[in-house]
């Protein structure tokens, strides 16, 4: 019994230590944003990686999400004689909730895992030690461009996801189910408000910070993983980063939604 309590206590302390370490990491990244020289070239490179290269996956997943939403809403709405409101239902669902969440999940899967693994390998190959010894802050040189690129890219990707999702709903509603295209668009215009757009924007920025922060921090502290090292540790932290990012993002989604709805 005593041993179990001890183990629980030790685990709790470790969790708080991890959280504190990650908090300090994030504060160091934010405080390095205004340090000079600013790596504009690195920022563009990261925007290309996080933003531009994520476009195909965002377009495809957005299109299919919109199409599935339209099918499901049609099945329900037809019973209530409200199919003309399909455009509003699809767009509201996407803009308020599915757009930011699904975009963030796609970016976590594609960028979060890759970023975590890359940074963990850099740690294992002493690249951060090398930067520190060259008096170059790893926070400024490696982390800041990734954070800013995520903050810039995610709202844009989310907007594209929303638009392509609405288009997917239009394809199913208008061409498959025979709804009026004009009515579909009209209900969107009437239902989407500035506060919806504000919500999608705020959520996407918060999700961007969460996903890139957890990916970078988990990779950066790979050497502190207990009982594993090398490639095994990289695999372990990458899995942890993806799971932790997704859970934290969904938790943050609930918090933000409860404040903004």
């Amino acid at each position, binding site marked *: 019994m005593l041993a179990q309590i001890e183990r629980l206590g030790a685990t709790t302390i470790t969790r708080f230590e991890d959280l504190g370490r990650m908090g300090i990491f994030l504060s160091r990244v934010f405080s390095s944003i205004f340090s000079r*020289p600013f790596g504009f070239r690195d920022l563009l490179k990261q925007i290309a990686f996080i933003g531009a290269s994520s476009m195909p996956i965002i377009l495809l997943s957005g299109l299919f999400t919109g199409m599935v939403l339209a099918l499901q809403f049609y099945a329900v709405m037809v019973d209530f004689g409200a199919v003309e409101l399909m455009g509003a239902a699809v767009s509201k669902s996407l803009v308020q909730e599915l757009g930011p969440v699904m975009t963030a999940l796609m970016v976590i899967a594609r960028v979060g895992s890759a970023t975590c693994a890359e940074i963990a390998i*850099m740690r294992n190959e*002493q690249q951060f*030690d*090398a930067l520190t*010894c*060259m*008096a170059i802050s790893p926070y400024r040189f490696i982390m800041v461009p990734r954070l800013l690129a995520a903050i810039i890219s995610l709202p844009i990707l989310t907007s594209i996801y929303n638009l392509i999702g609405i288009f997917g709903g239009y394809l199913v509603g208008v061409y498959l189910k025979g709804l009026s295209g004009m009515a579909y668009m009209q209900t969107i215009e009437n239902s989407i408000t500035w506060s919806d757009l504000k919500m999608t924007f705020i959520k996407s920025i918060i999700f961007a910070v969460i996903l890139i922060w957890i990916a970078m921090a988990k990779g950066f502290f790979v050497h502190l993983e207990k009982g594993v090292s090398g490639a095994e540790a990289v695999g372990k932290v990458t899995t942890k980063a993806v799971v932790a990012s997704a859970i934290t993002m969904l938790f943050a989604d609930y918090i933000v939604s409860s404040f903004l709805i």
Partner: protein
Amino acid sequence: MSDSQALIKVNNLSSAYGERKVLFDIDLEVKQGEILVVMGGSGSGKSTLLRNMLGLMMPSQGEILFNGKDICKVNQAELAKLRQSMGVAFQGGALLSSLSVGDNIKLPLRQHTDLDEKTISIMARLKLELMNLAEYEDLMPSELSGGMLKRAGLARAVIMDPKILFFDEPSAGLDPVTSVELDQLILDLREAMNMTIIVVTHELESAFKIADRIAVLFDGKLVTIGSVEHIKACSDERVVNLINRKPRINPLDADKYLSRLTKGS
């Protein structure tokens, strides 16, 4: 040797990973233009000593004076300034994998100087030629062999013409020819730039060839420090065993092996 001559001075240094102490009361100093080789077997604390001297790890006790300033007590800005006078060549090169060889070597100049790009390119080219790597400037680190990575890491370490160069395991994992080439490079660097060099290695031939003095570590303690002749003539059993490559325990000696396995059980 007076304090004014010593470029780096380690006083009463102890260091630990959590509860586990790995260095005990180390005292040593290195003069300007001297090559000091830190030798010892695996787990003797060589790399920990290096990490402490680089300020990558804080000692649990003692001080490390670089040019008279204790690197454990200066603030981050001062430490960054001091580090611009240090060059470090890591075991595997530690080149940034996202940058080409040329960009890796230019990085310290781009970050810390106001030199124009043309001048930076010329300086990087000179260092690459010194390392016999000029034709590899545009390649990515993943396209280089182990020896080339070490030489590229060395080129980056000396691009700012540092006062002191730290080199971690220059010969590890290299074929004998490349290893000899690197030793010669270290000697050439000292000759050309009067650079103070601290090399951490466990390669005897390499150490005897390049060292002005050798410090031998064993289980985190400094056993002895002195010239190559002093080390060769040293009667301390641990030094003799290291020089003669005598294993710490013979696994084929069944009695000793069993007694070691059952010790403490």
